[in-house]
């Protein structure tokens, strides 16, 4: 095993340069080190001006997603060792305007999450004093997988539609909509359906499943899109062929 590896890191300082460049750093490799540890080594020891986001270093806060050798990954959950002998190229996630170095602008993504009304919608709310809504383990299992999303945006970075159709609401937001649609406590599926159907792109999704492949939490957003399409189609035919059943 080599003792060091070259990390080629995308640099972009809008005050100084108009185009991104790559800068190479020689970084020691230790068996426990993740890509993020390599970046921290650069920042702490070699060049304090490198910018990137991270927080938990345990794969749950969703802030450290980047392209590593072209693949969207969580840098805190990807061993350096697995990419030897290198060089290891680190770039910001594809699909998000670069603010600085490895930091992308995620405003669009945050707006899309909010757009799907990701909260419990009910005609009538039960008073808290009356206790919890009952939900069996089986009912919980219906939506559980879609509730595991950490908003890391790797799926957006992998999505071929999002790249050409920025209005596409995208994999994680659809999975989030389904997370609530499938929750036995929720009655907002129709409202969310209206939101999703206004958004371009969903029918363009070819279900190749790049999103599910890169998802670090097995959320399977492609599966969510598939389920959504089926229910939306049923809904569409119901409204056209059986308008009396629309309610």
């Amino acid at each position, binding site marked *: 095993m080599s003792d060091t590896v070259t990390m080629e890191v995308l640099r972009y*300082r809008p005050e100084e340069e108009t185009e991104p460049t790559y800068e190479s750093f020689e970084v020691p490799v230790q068996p426990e080190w993740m890509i993020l540890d390599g970046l921290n080594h650069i920042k702490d020891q070699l060049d304090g001006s490198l*910018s990137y986001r991270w*927080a938990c270093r345990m794969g749950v806060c*969703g802030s450290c997603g980047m392209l590593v050798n072209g693949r969207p990954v969580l840098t805190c959950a990807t061993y350096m060792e697995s990419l030897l002998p290198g060089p290891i190229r680190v770039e910001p996630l594809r699909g998000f305007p670069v603010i600085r170095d490895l930091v992308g602008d995620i405003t669009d993504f945050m707006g899309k999450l909010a757009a799907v009304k990701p909260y419990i919608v009910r005609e009538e709310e039960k008073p808290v004093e009356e206790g919890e809504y009952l939900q069996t*383990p089986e009912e919980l299992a219906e939506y559980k997988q879609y509730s595991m999303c950490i908003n890391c945006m790797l799926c957006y970075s992998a999505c071929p539609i999002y790249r050409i159709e920025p209005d596409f609401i995208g994999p994680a937001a659809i999975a989030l909509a389904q997370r609530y649609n499938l929750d036995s*406590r929720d009655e907002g599926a129709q409202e969310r359906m209206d939101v999703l159907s206004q958004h371009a792109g969903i029918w363009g999704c070819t279900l190749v499943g790049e999103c599910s492949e890169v998802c670090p939490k097995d959320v399977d957003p492609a599966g969510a899109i598939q389920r959504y399409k089926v229910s939306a189609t049923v809904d569409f035919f119901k409204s056209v062929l059986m308008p009396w059943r629309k309610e």
Partner: protein
Amino acid sequence: MDTRVHDVLLVGGGGAGLRAAIAVAETNPGLSVAVVSKVYPMRSHTVSAEGGAAAVVRDEDSLEAHAYDTISGGDWLCDQDAVEAFVREATREMVQLEHWGCPWSRQPDGRIATRPFGGMKIERTWYAADKTGFHMLHALFQTTLRYPPIKRYDEFFVTRLLVDDGRCQGVVALEVATGKVQALLAKAVILCSGGGGKVFPFTTNANIKTGDGMAMAYQSGAPLKDMEFVQYHPTGLPFTGILITEAARAEGGWLLNKDGYRYLQDYDLGTPSPTPVKRSMELGPRDRLSQAFVAESKAGRAIPTPYGDVVHLDVRHLGEAVIDKKIPFVRELCLKYQKLDPVKEMIPVRPVVHYMMGGVATDLDGATPVAGLFAAGEVACVSINGANRLGSNSLTELLVFGARAGRAAARFAGAQPDPSSALVAQAADEERRLHRDFLGRTDGTERVADIRSEMQQAMEAGAGIYRDEESIQVAATKVAALRQRFRRVALQDSSRTFNTELVSALELSNLLDLAEVILASAAARRESRGAHQRTDFPERDDEGFLAHTMARQGEDGRPRIEFDPVTITTWPPGERVYGR
């Protein structure tokens, strides 16, 4: 200078901040509420909490039992009126969160499921598998999207509080993306900025847990209470410090020394039984378990590794099905970060800095002694955690006291005049300071990373699981020297755009304040209680120290320590008994 005005400003978008924001919006929908957070809210460290959140639900349980466990677990340093309010309102808050969509794990009939937890005599820990904090935070964040009055300033770093005429009326914040400094004025400010585990080198805490709110409150004249109490969680993975949740032991995991022996039986924590017994052995309180580890390690019965001694956490006997159902995240973390499968192998663990019992002193409504300034969550000390927090009380604390502070701040703000215009001048001074001390400085020689790491090592050596007069003084001298060196810090990054080095420098400055306060408080408490163990004063001393330390910043910038009485309502100080 860009200036915005709101009614109530939240510093922090973790569990406490988001709960408080909703409480403000519900108390008075006419108020404008803003959440300022240095990271997007769902990145806040509440996201990493695993095990669960405590609230009485089972028929055989009672509020008295929850209160007693909490108070004895806290070695009688908790304010009992705060604990009473806490246990009384806990269940309502947890049900509320259920109504907001939190995917709590369930019993077969659809009711909430509970699990045992360390130091709790009866099962009362609600959980969402072992990603409780993650699910709570996302449910809260998503629910805030229902409330249009809640505005957010994401990735804004608060650098100081604006206090005029004895009243807190806003903050100065740096917009990280642009480097713009803004005055955010408000009639009330609630600090929900979390803890500061990064004072120490080896911690379960995220990189962002740098005690900013504690330091800013302290600089503004608010006292920090009981800061000497730092919780070491007994089971962190070596090297990374990643937490292996207490739920692993609650479900039946064992702690074994190098001979495969359940050593806790030698530390007055009960006798081993094959299945978990509450308040006994592996389900003892965290302070006692971490202290037992140190003794085993000193006796040569731990297992040496390049990252220090470890013992083994063994869950193999639970079997794959239980592990996957009850503690799937433990398996995921071990596979990903320790390259081992807990279904087949034992997990190496060692004590790791986890939680600050101390914080900004508040009353039961989160109000601090500075008018207009409130605090809730890990940043605050109300105090329900005393000398040692019980696992699963903190997440519930965020909800109960986040909601209380939100309601109180909303009432306060409704009765206040608009913020004074004098504050904008203070904010302009702050902008100049950032430039003078950091961005524009060319003569610096010191690096942020070096000072930070030397401070962390000094704190571990001086104020770790065991301390004494000498170790504390050595660390204090070191921290004072680091404070001097920090004046000569040089940034390599002079950019205004997403300057994370500037943010780290500001965080380090806050950490140095915290380090100083922890050491001064630890020096003043000449007894051993809960997580504060003095080898030179090994006994608890209720005569002298059944009291809270209160640290205030003196004229010379150094902490002054005073003592405040503990509120005792029902439970007189007694012996802490576990496993007997």
